[in-house]
């Protein structure tokens, strides 16, 4: 691994992305994501990077599509209001099989909303967000270390499946400072055989389009995409399990709130409650495999999120027994304390 530093989440991600060979950044300022474009613009001359502050998120996402279409690593970073504008291009990049990385530093919506930590974009990120049948891989970091580690991983997955990857941090993970071991510098793969970077001796020309040519052709196009998504569902489920072996209650939380659950679980254990944690790391594909072994056990699931209840629906679908699943959420940018979560569990289960 590379250097150990004390760094802010967004800056650590930006540095890790640069070390991953992402030389192109296009973005529009929005709290709480702005340190990422600021870091790129600062490093541009010394690192030979291209940084453009775009006129809108619509343009920024489409510029990323342009770089991705040439087979090179490009990214943008935004927050909910900007991601909504970018959804058109997310649908496009997924349909066009363009590998790209987008950071969504979630903040509480709807609309302009607030700027602290939130997980209110879960549905938008995991169910598509834009039009049509498509999915993007979504990775949710719960520490600055994981945030930085997800930069090389996101590009690797994006290129492996030729699909956009979203790194879903939030106001807390983005702004928090922690010790982090930065990834080592890597050289990204060379020219891609499918990319549109000019023939330049390739021997054939390439064509990237998302425009259908009749219903039969377009159904087959969609079926091919769905086959790709099925492969991702099979191979790329990621999660962490903590103390689930003897658990009667399993807390389910992702991102910054999973950090709070660690302490809440410790308090519960001290007070004789057998509590464990499942922390989804890939929000899409949702880690259904994490829940399989609990199907026949008498385990209750306490789902907590910084939203009005979004991931809880995926847990219910996975468990297939609504009576086993309880939900507690906070809105507006408020993160519950560990004691608050512990008391809520006592209230529900004692």
């Amino acid at each position, binding site marked *: 691994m590379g250097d150990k530093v004390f760094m802010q989440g967004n800056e650590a991600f930006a540095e890790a992305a640069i070390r991953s060979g992402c030389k192109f950044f*296009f973005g529009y300022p929005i709290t709480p994501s702005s340190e990422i474009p600021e870091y790129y613009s600062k490093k541009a001359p010394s690192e030979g990077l291209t940084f453009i502050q775009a006129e809108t998120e619509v343009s920024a996402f489409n510029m990323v599509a342009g770089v991705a279409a040439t087979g090179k690593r490009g990214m943008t970073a935004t927050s909910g209001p900007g991601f909504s504008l970018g959804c058109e291009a997310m649908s496009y990049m997924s349909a066009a099989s363009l590998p790209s990385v987008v950071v969504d530093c979630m903040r509480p919506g709807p609309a302009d909303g607030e700027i602290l930590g939130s997980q209110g974009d879960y549905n938008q990120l995991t169910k598509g967000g834009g039009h049509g049948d498509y999915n993007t891989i979504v990775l949710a970091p719960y520490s600055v270390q994981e945030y930085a580690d997800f930069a090389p991983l996101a590009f690797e997955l994006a290129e492996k499946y030729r699909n956009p990857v979203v790194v879903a941090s939030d106001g807390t993970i983005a702004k928090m400072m922690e010790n982090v071991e930065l990834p080592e510098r890597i050289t990204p793969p060379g020219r891609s055989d499918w990319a*549109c970077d000019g023939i330049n001796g390739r021997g054939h020309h390439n064509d990237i389009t998302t425009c259908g040519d009749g219903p039969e052709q377009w159904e087959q196009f969609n079926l091919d995409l769905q086959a790709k998504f099925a492969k991702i569902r099979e191979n790329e489920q990621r999660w962490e399990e903590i103390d689930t072996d003897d658990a009667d209650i399993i807390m389910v939380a992702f991102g910054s709130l999973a950090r709070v659950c660690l302490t809440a679980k410790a308090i519960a254990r001290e007070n004789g409650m057998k509590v464990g944690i499942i922390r989804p790391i890939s929000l899409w594909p949702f880690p259904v495999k994490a829940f399989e072994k609990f199907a026949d056990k008498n385990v209750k699931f306490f789902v907590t999120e910084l939203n009005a209840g979004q991931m809880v629906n995926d847990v219910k679908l996975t468990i297939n027994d609504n009576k086993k699943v309880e939900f507690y959420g906070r809105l507006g940018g408020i993160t519950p304390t560990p004691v608050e979560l512990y008391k809520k569990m006592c209230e529900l289960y004692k």
Partner: protein
Amino acid sequence: MSIVYKKPEVFTEEYKKYCGGCGHGIINKLIAEVMEEEKLVDKTVLIWPIGCSVYADKYYKADSICALHGRAPAVGTGVKRSCPEDLVVVYQGDGDMVSEGMAEIMHSGIRGEKFTVIFVNNSIYGMTGGQMAPTTLMDQVTTTTPYGRKEENTGHPVNMAEIIGNLKGCYYSERVTVTSPANIRKTKAAIKKAFKYQMEGKGLSFVEVLSPCPTGWKVKPLQALKWIDDVVSKQYPLGVFRDCGQEEK
């Protein structure tokens, strides 16, 4: 006997899905000819819009990307920044550029993006069936201005070649048309000049082409050509609005 007229080598066998009398076919062919004559096929990336030219990616044996509606200049920005040595051609219609994508084209000009824009202005939405565009003439009847375009509801037509030509990031802006062999030759010369400037690393080169849409205008092809010469070109005068290459001489 020498061959004086032939299909460009860079064209594929795909048939072109344009109506009779449409200008897109001529403009597509001029681009192909210049790519070949300037030996640029191997280093070209063509970026197509949403509109009647949406299938044009199938017509060329060159790298082609079909962008989202209005976003071709943003995609072009990504491509050109990634491959500065390539010839990047952004092709847009008037609905695509002047309505949906006004921000993208304006800011490409503001930043001085070093690609070429071929802007096909037929003052109407062709593919969706003849609706009003921001470029529709005053009193022009379309399916969404059935009583003619009126100032109080939709304002005035937009003169893009002049607007873009006024931006410091623009190196070259000219308006041409394809209503006669002489005008077609001038259009080809403008495209050639735009490509030359791009390959010299200059700023945005912008060629607006007044193009007939007999189907959308509901007139015969010859009447469409006459309407451009007699009426459309009064609103959109032909000419050069910026040519830094001339100024530098």
